[in-house]
């Protein structure tokens, strides 16, 4: 039994056995993980989960200025975690108390690159409308179990002390967009980068206020040390300007740059780079416009404003209040369907973003990546459907 108490090591004999074809054949059709998870959530053969080890408050937030609190969560992943490259993000699934429903969101990893099975950190701002971020910052406790994906994303550092280049590096970040850049700088410094190779790192960050600045102490230490890393912090109305950037990094268009921040910052920086291929950007979901005001009663088909995008087929149409199945069919698409009355689930599709209304219940929902039955769901504003 002792072999099972500690999580099976990925390369060890237990891990190899759990991932073997024999184990898969013996546990068909459910799979090994469906058995392991019933006994200990930290036992896994393929899936990734993590236990919260500690929660550290970075900022408390300020209701007056509208800034939300930030916390850093240290996670112990299952042995199935393959590690991450600096700059990558991970999908985090949590079962929110009271609803029992699992919500999944992407968060950048803030700690330096991790090896398989190694602990890492997420630094998260509790957005007002973000149920998941709010829960993780305010309510997650040591011991809380999170469902994870493997690390993903290509917004990563192309170099490390092991594979150095002579290029300079520039990070431009805003708000909680600092996290992937922080992971990269931490990785460089941890792995012995000291700037004597003649490559400079410039870190330009925009925050709401000094109180709202996360990693303030660490950034001050990094700035003070003789390591070739320059840190420039800008607060409040000090917006990004091309003029200032040119002063800091004259040849910025020819400098490898990583940009992560709110849409306003991204817009200004993108304009300054004017299509330069040196600029790399990280953004999660494109924001979809507000739910349109619908008129008429919810039981009747009501007129709505909005645009329906069927993202897989690349078609768009104006929302009419008809079911998404009917709207897709009007466009000549042929999605699978069955009962057309919401009972058989044949037409289930993923709404990746936007607001929809269940025509049976009148209930509206704006959750991203939500499974919907398109025969009984209508657009209630702009929405993106994976179809």
């Amino acid at each position, binding site marked *: 039994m002792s072999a099972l108490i500690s999580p099976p090591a990925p390369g060890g004999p237990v891990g190899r056995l759990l991932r073997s074809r*024999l184990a898969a*054949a*013996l546990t*068909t*059709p*459910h799979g090994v993980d*469906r*058995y392991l*998870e*019933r006994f200990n959530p930290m036992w896994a053969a393929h899936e990734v989960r993590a236990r919260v080890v500690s929660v550290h408050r970075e900022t408390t937030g300020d209701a007056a200025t509208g800034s939300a609190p930030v916390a850093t969560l240290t996670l112990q992943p299952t042995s199935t975690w393959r590690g991450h490259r600096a700059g990558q993000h991970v999908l985090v*699934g949590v*079962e929110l*108390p*009271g*609803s*029992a*429903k*699992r*919500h*999944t969101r992407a968060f950048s990893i803030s700690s330096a690159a991790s090896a398989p099975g190694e602990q890492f950190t997420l630094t998260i701002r509790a957005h007002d409308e973000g149920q998941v971020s709010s829960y993780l910052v305010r309510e997650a406790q040591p011991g809380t179990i999170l469902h994870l994906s493997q690390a993903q994303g290509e917004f990563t550092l192309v170099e490390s002390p092991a594979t150095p280049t002579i290029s300079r590096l520039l990070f431009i970040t805003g708000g909680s967009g600092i996290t992937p850049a922080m992971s990269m700088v931490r990785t460089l410094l941890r792995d012995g980068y000291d700037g004597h190779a003649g490559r400079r790192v410039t870190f330009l960050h925009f925050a709401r206020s000094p109180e709202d600045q996360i990693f303030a102490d660490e950034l001050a230490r990094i700035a003070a040390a003789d390591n070739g890393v320059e840190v420039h912090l800008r607060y409040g109305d000090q917006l990004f300007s091309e003029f200032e950037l040119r002063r800091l990094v004259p040849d910025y268009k020819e400098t490898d740059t990583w940009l992560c921040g709110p849409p306003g910052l991204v817009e200004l920086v993108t304009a300054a780079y004017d299509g330069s291929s040196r600029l790399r950007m990280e953004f999660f979901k494109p924001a979809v416009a507000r739910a349109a005001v619908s008129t008429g009663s919810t039981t009747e088909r009501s007129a709505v404003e909005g645009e329906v995008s069927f993202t897989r087929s690349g078609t768009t149409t104006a929302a009419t209040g008809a079911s998404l199945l009917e709207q897709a069919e009007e466009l000549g698409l042929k999605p699978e369907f*069955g*009962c057309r*009355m*919401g*009972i*058989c*689930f*044949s037409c*289930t599709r993923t709404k990746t973003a936007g607001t929809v209304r269940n025509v*049976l*219940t009148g209930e509206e929902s704006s959750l991203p990546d939500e*499974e919907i039955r398109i025969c009984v769901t209508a657009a209630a504003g702009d929405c993106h459907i994976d179809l």
Partner: protein
Amino acid sequence: MSTDTLTDEKYHGLTAEQIDQLGAELDALRQRVLADLGEDDAAYLRKVVTTQRKLEIAGRALFYLPVVGWLPAVACLSVSKILDNMEIGHNVMHGQYDFLGDPAFNSRMFDWDTVCPGEQWKYSHNYIHHTFTNIVGKDRDVGYGILRMDPEQKWHPYYLGNPLYAFLLMTFFEWGVALHDLEVENIVSGKRKLADNKPLYPGLMRKIRRQALKDYVLFPALTGPLFPLTFAGNAVANLVRNVWAFNIIFCGHFPAGVASFSVEETENETRGHWYLRQMLGSANIKGSKLMHVMSGNLSHQIEHHLFPDLPARRYPEMAVEVQEICERYGLPYNTGRLHQQLWSVFKKICRYSLPGGDAKVAPVRGPGAVTEDSLAA
């Protein structure tokens, strides 16, 4: 409705407005339960799954105990398979727990421990059977294409074998369910081409191979010299599950008093009519809490057919209101103990092996009017 006369007979004299009102009441009940779904439902499902997994592991392990372990092993494995197929598999694949957002309990990802691929079953069950319930000629679960269970099905000397076919279907139920989607009867009658089945074969063969490998090769082989005993034990567990599932499912739509419908009667159906057809076309089984769990709460077939996508554990509480609604509208609520319902089904299987049979069941009015005794005569 263009068929007012039919409405009178079949729908117990309810007017179109009354039927709409009935639909609205059932919609309201549905809304109430839907709004209340949450942690209790998740905890319940996870508890049942944990129990099932433990029983399965215990069952597989007990085969290592020669002689004394065999019977308990078969018992554990039988119960495990019944829970897997009914309270877990059937209900999860109905999408009842999709609201959890847990991939382990998602109707599009779940598959059950039988030779029938969940993907194929969901089409014939969730769509065809649940949408066209008891419409003779449309619902392929009326007699499963093998039996004559309704006077509207034209008699043929083939049906003299009705009881034998039913017995064979019971014994090999999981295979019957798996082959059901190939619609052999429609191929014989020329309504479906053999080529239409081609896309189904790979998935079906893969599932059969995996199930057979697990139960009849790998687990027996792992017990070494006890191979034959483990092999036989696994076969018996599958058989026990087959017999139990068949019996529960045949009590769902075949006891006396359950109405069937024609394609013409159900044209231009409203939501209220659809609800009414589900109520009149299904029958419940009375029993203990354990019986309900072991039947996947399909002992509440009426509630299941009204609300197929709501977690089945809610059916007992909903049944109280559904029964009250039936009483108020003068509708029958077909229920009985397991042995009563089974006896009723058995008589029907035998009766319809012969030509004829009552075309119409006399409408019965009043609270609790339909009982096994009043209709069996």
